[in-house]
């Protein structure tokens, strides 16, 4: 089985996000970019399935500007067999990403598509579900456990009520939650090896997908600030402060 893994480049989760003064977006110049944490988990899971002999090939895919090659090399260094870089200057919306991934699926015929449940930039949490719909295949979102037995996957999902387990026929789309696994660290020799692994570049337009502006982004603003709080010295002070606010 071949596994296709979505591998988006995003602003690192440790960066303190600043809205640009003119409100046109957030500051991304000179800011550390990293693989989306959920996508690293997706890649890790794919690699483990390959190590168990369930998958033969792991292909990482990113839709990103031309300067994202080192990002894809990173995925190769982590262990993917090859990479596909769909080149798009600007960010693409989830529906466009899903349409582009569907084109790749038609070409690559994977048995499983693993994506992060959300990207930590736009926090949309849509692409996996949209892709599964367009592909007319099952989806298992927010996965915290994945077991594959032949043509069926058993997936445990983190839902508000607890842990839900479903069974889906393959091929299918699975999106990862944080507790699915802990991604491995990349070792130096793997970075060297990654240099010679195949990396295909493909302009988005070559896939016959137009980057649609389905939901147009306008003005950005910082979230409303909370008023500065007070520090109390002890439990008595805390109880007083709570009483003053009518909370106890």
């Amino acid at each position, binding site marked *: 089985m071949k596994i296709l893994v979505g591998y988006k480049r995003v602003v690192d989760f440790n960066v303190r996000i600043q809205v640009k003064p003119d409100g046109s977006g957030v500051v991304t110049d000179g800011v550390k970019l990293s693989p989306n944490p959920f996508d690293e988990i997706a890649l890790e899971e794919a690699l483990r399935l390959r190590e168990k002999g369930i998958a033969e090939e792991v292909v990482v895919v990113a839709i990103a500007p031309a300067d994202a090659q080192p990002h894809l090399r990173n995925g190769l260094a982590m262990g993917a067999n090859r990479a596909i870089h769909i080149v798009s200057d600007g960010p693409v919306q989830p529906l466009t990403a899903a349409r582009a991934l569907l084109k790749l699926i038609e070409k690559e015929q994977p048995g499983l598509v693993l994506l992060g449940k959300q990207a930590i930039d736009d926090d949309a949490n849509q692409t996996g579900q949209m892709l599964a719909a367009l592909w007319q295949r099952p989806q298992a979102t927010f996965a915290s456990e994945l077991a594959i037995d032949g043509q069926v996957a058993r997936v445990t999902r*983190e839902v508000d009520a607890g842990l839900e387990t*479903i069974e889906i026929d393959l091929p299918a789309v699975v999106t990862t939650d944080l507790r699915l696994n802990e991604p491995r660290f990349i070792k130096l020799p793997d970075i060297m090896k990654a240099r010679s692994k195949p990396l295909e570049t493909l302009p988005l337009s070559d896939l016959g997908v137009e980057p*649609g502006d389905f939901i147009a982004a306008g003005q950005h*603003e910082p979230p409303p600030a*909370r008023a500065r709080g007070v520090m109390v010295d002890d439990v008595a002070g805390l109880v007083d402060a709570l009483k003053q606010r009518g909370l*106890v």
Partner: protein
Amino acid sequence: MSKVLIIAEHLDGQLNPSTAKCVSAAAKLSPQAIDILVLAEQADAIAADAAKIDGVGTVLTVSRAENAQPLAAILAPQVAKAADGYSHVFGPSTTFGKDLMPRVAALLGVGQVSDLMEVIDAHSFKRPIYAGNAIVTVTAPADAPVIATVRTASFPAAGSNGSAAVQALDLDVELPGHTRFVELKAGKSDRPDLQTASRVISGGRALGSGEAFKVIYSLADKLGAGVGASRAAVDAGYVPNDMQVGQTGKIIAPELYIAVGISGAIQHLTGIKDAGTIVAINKDPDAPIFEIADIGLVGDLFKILPELEAAL
């Protein structure tokens, strides 16, 4: 004029309060009609509850054995069909809605507005991005249905004095058999539900074990509070996943939130920004949680919590 269809969330025959919050969001559109769609094995009792929500015109029901569990692949084609004639289709931004609504949007060939937190007009909305560190105004096209998930912490639940009509729908949609429900392991708790509780106490990595969470539960019971946790506490196995608060857990808006032994990472803070009063108890005076807290107390939680419980 807008016509809004809201997808009801329910579990074990109980309507989830997220549905009434979606109705409040829909009401901000000043629409011509707000209808609710209940997809269930037996929709009648749930529909009767939904019909009481203020401002609802009609509750539409589809009772089918396949709808016994909320499987997005089964529900989405039914929602997409029922959406015909509506200008807006809203679901809650809970794991139920997040799973379902994008699948509906793709079937309809439109984008989705995730985590709608404010209505500006029928097609413009505000939503958080970057873990809530920026708010963006987005505009959906006027000539297509608007599919959105509603950030439930941003809207109060609509009242329950209504008496909407209930009407069964026959959608005649073929459903796939490729997705099957196996089981739900629900965290059983007698405490108030995290997402609706007016008071919540959360514990972090500092607790150090599941056993140590007793001090949190004990204070929670005294206050009648729900209990949450940081990701670190869930990852470490101290408490189940359904207690996680934050960017990738639950976004909550209680009147009182007490963070105990939680450092205040942005991913955690994004889940509590709408709380009325935030109390932080942490032994590190430089912990970022104090930047957002309304009331801060520096000290050892294992000393402070029993004292606090005794003082209340």
